[in-house]
């Protein structure tokens, strides 16, 4: 017993030393080498990616990007969650149109061009030729008809599918021409075609969407290691320019610190969405990293219950808005990263207006409004999502409200399960905080059943007019709608979540602003 034990101990110790020793060696030789280790290890396929990474001047063809939330499955037709389109849209699935990353404009993708009829109800698309799906099927007008009608069928179950309600019929004119007829003019519809509901499917590729997506995009899903990573491989038959990176690994970190550590040690090359902005200093102070800061569609919303309780009084809502010093809040809650917005519109939308001056920080005015409403010393049930930004912001809000005599009792609710149940579904709250991250989602305020419980015919008319009008009319009406929301103090927009990316300094083509639903990998390369 003694001898075998001693042998085992010695062997183990020797093994440990060897392993750490070899790790230390490769780590010291070359700082970028360890990133090669990370990416190759993750796709479990070290041989072909290694040579590229070992010569920084050559052509590195692998990239590992860290994200927070892993998709529950790969089927966004039945499963909600931003993580699925974030990974798949544009990269694996393509639509007829997409959003330009820089300008936010709608640009051609699988459609070469399109024409809109005089009355804005008929869209004639000319399709790109020579496009194939990753299962070998050719992409034709039949697939467009199939995909659009599938959104309208029961096969799609996420409520975003309502974006396709306005489509009356889809006509296949020729294999490369398709006509979409709308029941009424709708600017929203073409925009929605850039989101997940516009993704093009083929009838032979929808059998196992949860695990095997079949699209026309520049990447295909190579392997999915549940709980860890998704590996994309370049689609050899892609119709457009082949992406510069052959293998992209999306790795998922539930813990932001773990993602930071992986970045610091070169285990990953990019953090796609930084969740701990206070930790950015450690990257900004080093030359081997770059930090990209831009806008997103994520409005961190201080939601009010407009229907019942103290917040149903507009004066109380306005008082709360005047009592909040948003600049100080942003500094404390999100390390000063992010943007102040005065309504539910991010700066990348064409109808953005700076409304941040409408409710300046003015505690005296807040107290006057409270006195006016007879609501001095009111107590609010402040039921927030237990997410980092919400918890941090809620503490600042509560302390600022205390200064004007409002007691806000913070109750963090487990997100998503309890928050969805109690705040979102039952509207059992006075105030809440959550980020609304869908693009162009101001329409949620038009729905009286949404948890804001805001019922305003005037707003709905403006939203309808914006949808039906010319591009100029759309902008004007949307601006009016955003202004109306702010005036009526339907909610407070604490700040806009920043698009924070940390990347190795040789990575280029990362999206500065996040305008759509996807994390667009197609423009990324390494110099």
């Amino acid at each position, binding site marked *: 017993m003694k001898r075998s034990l001693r042998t085992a101990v010695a062997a183990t110790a020797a093994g440990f030393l060897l392993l750490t020793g070899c790790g230390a060696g490769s780590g010291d030789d070359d700082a970028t080498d360890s990133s090669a280790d990370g990416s190759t290890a993750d796709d479990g396929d070290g041989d072909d990616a290694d040579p590229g990474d070992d010569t920084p001047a050559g052509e590195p063809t692998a990239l590992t990007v860290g994200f927070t939330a892993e998709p529950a499955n790969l089927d966004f037709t039945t499963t909600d969650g931003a993580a699925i389109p974030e990974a798949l849209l544009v990269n694996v699935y393509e639509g007829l149109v997409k959003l330009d990353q820089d300008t936010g404009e709608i640009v051609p993708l699988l459609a070469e061009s399109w024409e809109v009829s005089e009355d804005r109800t008929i869209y004639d698309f000319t399709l790109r030729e020579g496009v194939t799906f990753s299962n070998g099927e050719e992409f034709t007008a039949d697939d467009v008809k199939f995909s659009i009608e599938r959104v309208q069928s029961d096969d799609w179950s996420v409520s975003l599918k309502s974006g396709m309600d306005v489509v009356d019929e889809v006509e296949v004119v020729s294999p490369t021409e398709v006509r979409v007829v709308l029941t009424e003019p709708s600017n929203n519809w073409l925009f929605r075609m850039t989101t997940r509901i516009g993704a093009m499917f083929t009838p032979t590729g929808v059998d196992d969407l949860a695990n095997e997506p079949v699209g026309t995009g520049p990447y295909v899903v190579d392997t999915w290691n549940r709980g860890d990573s998704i590996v994309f491989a370049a689609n050899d038959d892609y119709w457009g320019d082949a992406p510069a990176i052959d293998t992209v690994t999306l790795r998922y970190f539930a813990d932001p610190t773990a993602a930071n550590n992986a970045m610091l040690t070169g285990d990953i090359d990019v953090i796609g969405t930084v969740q701990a902005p206070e930790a950015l200093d450690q990257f900004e102070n080093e030359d081997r990293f770059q930090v990209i800061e831009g806008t997103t569609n994520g409005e961190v919303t201080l939601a009010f219950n407009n229907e019942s309780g103290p917040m149903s009084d507009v004066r109380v809502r306005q008082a709360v808005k005047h009592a909040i010093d948003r600049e100080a809040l942003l500094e404390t809650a999100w390390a000063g990263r992010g943007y102040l917005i005065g309504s539910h519109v991010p700066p990348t939308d064409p109808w953005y207006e700076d409304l941040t001056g409408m409710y300046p920080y003015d505690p005296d005015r807040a107290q006057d409004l409270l006195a006016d409403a007879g609501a001095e010393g009111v107590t609010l049930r402040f039921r927030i999502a237990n997410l980092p930004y919400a918890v941090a912001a809620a503490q600042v809000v509560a302390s600022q409200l205390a200064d004007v005599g409002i007691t806000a009792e913070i109750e963090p609710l487990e997100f998503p399960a309890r928050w*969805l149940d109690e705040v979102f579904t039952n509207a059992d709250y006075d105030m809440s905080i959550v980020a609304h991250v869908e693009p162009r989602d101001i329409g949620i305020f038009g729905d009286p059943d949404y948890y804001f419980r805001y019922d305003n015919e005037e707003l709905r008319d403006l939203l309808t007019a914006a949808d039906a009008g010319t591009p100029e009319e759309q902008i004007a009406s949307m601006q009016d709608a955003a202004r109306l929301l702010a005036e009526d103090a339907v909610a407070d927009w604490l700040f806009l979540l920043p698009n924070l990316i940390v990347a190795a300094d040789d990575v280029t083509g990362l999206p500065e602003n996040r305008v759509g639903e996807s994390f667009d990998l197609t423009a990324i390369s390494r110099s």
Partner: protein
Amino acid sequence: MVFALSLLLASAVVFAFMAVLPGDPARVALGVQATPEALEATRAEFGLDRSLPAQYLDWVGGLLQGDLGRSYVTRADIGPQVFDRLQVTAWLVMAGMLVALVIALPLGVLAAVRHRRLSGMMLSGASQVGMAVPSFLAGILLVSVVAVQLGWLPPGGWVVPADDPVQFLRRLILPALALGLVQGAVVTRYVRSAVLDVMREDYLRTARAKGLGPYRALVKHGLRNAAIPVVTVLALQLATLLIGAVVVERVFVIPGLGSLLLDGVANRDLLLVQSVVMVLVLAVLLVNYVVDVLYTVLDPRLRRAG
């Protein structure tokens, strides 16, 4: 029999806990964007609209046939998922146990033999400190020092051993240390006290009187007897190690049972959580069974008695 009863009881307790957890699984699975019709359809699809006893019987019935059911969230069969993750966690627990033993056996014996000398007391004190450190803290410290500061090993992640054995081992070391160091400290104390007990036995004094040195006497006559209480403790510690792995997997971003369990709870993937817990319960019961067998190997007297 006791085995089956324990499992049955565990299944009832787990199911009851899941049933009282607030939150609508269908709503969480489908999210903010789900239509009411889709919610209804999902509830019907997974039988969430039936009475709780019916759901329970259905689940246990499936378990008996080896069918763990389908996940609400991923809509994939739970069995293969749990099996994949179990392999990861098994590596972790085994490696953690190995580290604990490598630390505890020599140090425990040393601390016992020298219990009156300064070196023995220092060892004993150090193990006390080690016990007080939770493994997630050890994990965070190891990552920040060994991985981030020194750059010797990767800070986390997982590689399947068959794909790349070297990377696999490099990524296993830190989590195994995080788990094993703390366990090692705990086990050291048990080894020390077991060896101390044995050292007071008459037969050991006889051995010393025959002229054997303290270590030789202990090795030849004492260790086997000291092993019995230590093995008992190891079995208990294995259960602790499993629980520790849940947290350590989070720190090191390892896709094991623990990560699966935590994600399952967050997503209200009730069936998945129930299955993972049952697998853990089964593992602990099996370990206890193996320990019973080990007793008889270590101590032939128990064989005769049985």
